[in-house]
């Protein structure tokens, strides 16, 4: 049995996640879509916090909200004039998209509800400490991630160079 506070917290977070993601894809103003995305990302970060992954939540806020969304905003400001609405969707494509995503929802939700044993209470878990995260990330033993870490660092380097080369003015 959860405390009332955590239930209220959950409801707010879940509602925020659902509402903002719906708004993010339905709004016609692209800058607003980016803003709603930011809120959704915050909601996701809140989920991480609620599940005791504080480090992950912090990374989510720092990288996603702080980095990616800012990148989005820059791109939007570069490619559209202020007050520039995106095109009106035709009802046909709207309906089709709706049908597609609802079918997706139904199939996956049905699978989730019927197939998975997901109704057990949350087991206890020792929240991962920074020591443990650091060791796991930098260790070379079983279940440790130095190699992916280095690979991601190379990927980021490549992406920096690629971004510069692609976006550079010729």
């Amino acid at each position: 049995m959860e405390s009332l506070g955590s239930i209220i917290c959950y409801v707010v977070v879940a509602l925020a996640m659902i509402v903002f993601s719906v708004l993010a894809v339905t709004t016609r103003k692209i800058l607003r879509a980016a803003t709603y995305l930011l809120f959704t990302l915050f909601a996701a970060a809140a989920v991480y916090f609620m599940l005791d992954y504080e480090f992950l939540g912090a990374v989510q806020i720092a990288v996603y909200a702080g980095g990616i969304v800012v990148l989005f905003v820059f791109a939007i400001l570069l490619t559209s004039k202020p007050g520039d609405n995106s095109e009106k969707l035709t009802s046909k494509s709207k309906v089709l998209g709706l049908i597609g995503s609802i079918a997706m929802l139904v199939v996956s939700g049905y699978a989730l509800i019927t197939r998975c044993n997901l109704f057990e209470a949350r087991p206890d878990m020792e929240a991962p400490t920074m020591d443990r995260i650091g060791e796991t990330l930098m260790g070379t033993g079983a279940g440790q991630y130095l190699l992916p870490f280095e690979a991601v660092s190379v990927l980021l380097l490549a992406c920096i160079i690629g971004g510069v080369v692609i976006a550079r003015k010729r």
Partner: protein
Amino acid sequence: MEITAIYYLIPSLIMFCCGVYGFITRRNMIAMLVSLELMLNAVDVNFVVFNRFLFPEQMEGMFFTLFAIAIAAAETAVAIAIIINIFRSTRNVDVRGLNEMKF
């Protein structure tokens, strides 16, 4: 009331489906990229939830999410660079205009 895994999974599924809807209906490439981020994020949430509820003593889901965030950042950066480049040459970010490389 017990908040079980399904309570987290359903919102994340809805988020994912929103991403799908946005990706297949929006014409603006940046909006599509936003939808893509939604989907990615929903998957991240799923990883974390499964990790937390099914294998609490391990940390694979969390680390996968960590790397996914890093890769998402890289992907977004490159995608935006491409979009800006396209915008420069066509003054447009409508995805329907980009069929020069078909067949």
